[in-house]
């Protein structure tokens, strides 16, 4: 088993980019395993994810897009493994928070990370923006 606690799965180099950023900021990219769906069928994405779960012992899957094939694959696996947590629409703030709270237990860490990710989306400035240099 590796030290990984979660899989990060998405389109293109989404996972690779996220892991690179996590490593730069926290040095804890070892907590994550990246998976891409690029050029894979739905069945192959699911199999790849199953293989990574087995070899890593991860109990959480973070995916980039609710409609994505990684999310579909994760939910298919979750049907057989209800204790598996699946979080869709993740951003860097979500993953960084998980990295810092992974030792709290995966379920609590997942909820905390999802809250953090939602809260990190902020619009500033722009025509209807609030706050920021051009805000009211």
């Amino acid at each position, binding site marked *: 088993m590796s030290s990984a606690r979660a899989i990060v799965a998405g*389109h293109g180099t989404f996972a690779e980019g996220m892991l690179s950023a996590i490593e730069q900021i926290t040095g804890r990219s070892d907590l994550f395993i990246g998976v891409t769906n690029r*050029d*894979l*069928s*739905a069945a*192959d994405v699911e199999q790849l994810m199953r293989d990574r779960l087995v070899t890593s012992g991860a109990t959480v899957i973070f995916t980039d*897009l*609710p*409609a*994505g*094939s990684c*999310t*579909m694959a994760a*939910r*298919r696996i979750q*049907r057989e493994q209800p204790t598996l947590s699946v979080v869709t629409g993740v951003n860097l703030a979500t993953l960084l928070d998980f990295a810092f709270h992974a030792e709290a237990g995966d379920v609590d860490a997942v909820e905390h990370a999802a809250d953090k990710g939602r809260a990190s989306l902020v619009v500033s400035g722009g025509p209807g923006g609030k706050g920021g240099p051009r805000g009211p």
Partner: protein
Amino acid sequence: MALDLYRIDDRLIHGQVVVGWGQPLDLGFIVLVDDEVASSDWEQELYRMGVPPDMDVYFDAVDSAAEKLSRYQDDDRRGLLLTGDIATMTRLVDAADGAISSVNVGGIHHRPGRTQRLRYVFLTPSEEAELRALADKGLEVSAQDVPSAKPVPLEEMLAGNGS
């Protein structure tokens, strides 16, 4: 015609379809034609979860899709019809009796026995014959994974080696 695209894609509903095509086409609905999915509430719920709330998804077996096709085509909203393989699209084309004039090959991925033709298209000899048969019936058959890509005509697709 409200159905803008008749697409063969073995991932069925996924990011390229919902976002890649959904946003530029301003899709109001997707028709997913698959006998297995049409008979499984769980599969339907899975695919519905991936679609934004303002987009409808209709699940049909081939026969019911053919029966409802004119209704889908007359819908005021723009729509996309999906099958997961060439055989299902061929059955639908035959059942629809001339009502479908073009087919988009959006993604058929690697499997033993298939040869890579494009980055996102792998075909067995019998699948290639099925696509040629669709063209012989007068349908325009081309490959295009995303709207910004150039459509690849059938013969160019079949002559490809994946590069």
